């Protein structure tokens, strides 16, 4: 199959959007964990 740049761009953009969103969830979760540790002190 010949690689179509538009096809590649569409699939890449889809996964970039999902990965960025997942990264924000992970970063918010680790910030909350730190906050919980501070609250426990």
């Amino acid at each position: 199959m010949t690689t179509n740049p538009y096809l590649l761009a569409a699939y890449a953009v889809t996964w970039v959007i999902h990965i960025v969103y997942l990264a924000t969830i992970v970063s918010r979760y680790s910030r909350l964990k730190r906050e919980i540790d501070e609250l426990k002190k």
Partner: protein
Amino acid sequence: MKRVFPILVILTGILLSYAMYMALSPNGAPTEQTMGNVQRIFYYHVPSAWTAFILFFINFGASIYYLIKRSPTADMVALVCAEVGVVFCTVVLITGPIWARPVWGIWWTWDMRLTSTLVLWLIYVSYLFLRRFSSSGQTPLLAAALAVMGALCVPFVYFSIWFFRTQHPQPVMGGGGSIDPRMLHVLLLNWLAFSCFAFLVCWSRYRLEKLQRQVDEAHAMRSLMDEPSQRGMDTPRSAR
């Protein structure tokens, strides 16, 4: 529950990889004769749109439930579904123009389907802004009312290509369009994979939201407990 989640993540990862292989390989979905390989964008664009619509409908149901029962769980479900739905709707709004450029020769046209999808996205983005930046105690109530209004836009977006003359292709199912059974199989497989993925993302986001609210509650309790001691310290000063 903690054991089930990693298993589901692995299974969804396998399903997503297989669905992507089927979407990209001519052994899975046949190459469309007119558009060629660029048509394969459809296997990501359409399932993302369907997943976003389902999430907006869950948001609608949860918002109605919140308006009736004032349930914090319903409020959290509504927020989570709106957020993940916006992510999927963003994918739709970006992959659509990427497909349109080689096929129509333009990135965007103010056609009824495209414009109504953009309006739908803007409604749910404003919902998220309201949730993020309003500090009023009435925010969940206002957001639920906005979500109910926003959900009315979903059927309009879906049926816009039935009622208006648009440039957008006809619906795959239930409309005037027809599709090769192998293409339909790959489309449904991708939809299943994206639905599982959306479910897991919603689950993680729900847990995060629940934890956030518990932390906020703990902060509020702590400041309430600190207040009397501070007041106790203030009293002699004011008496002086």
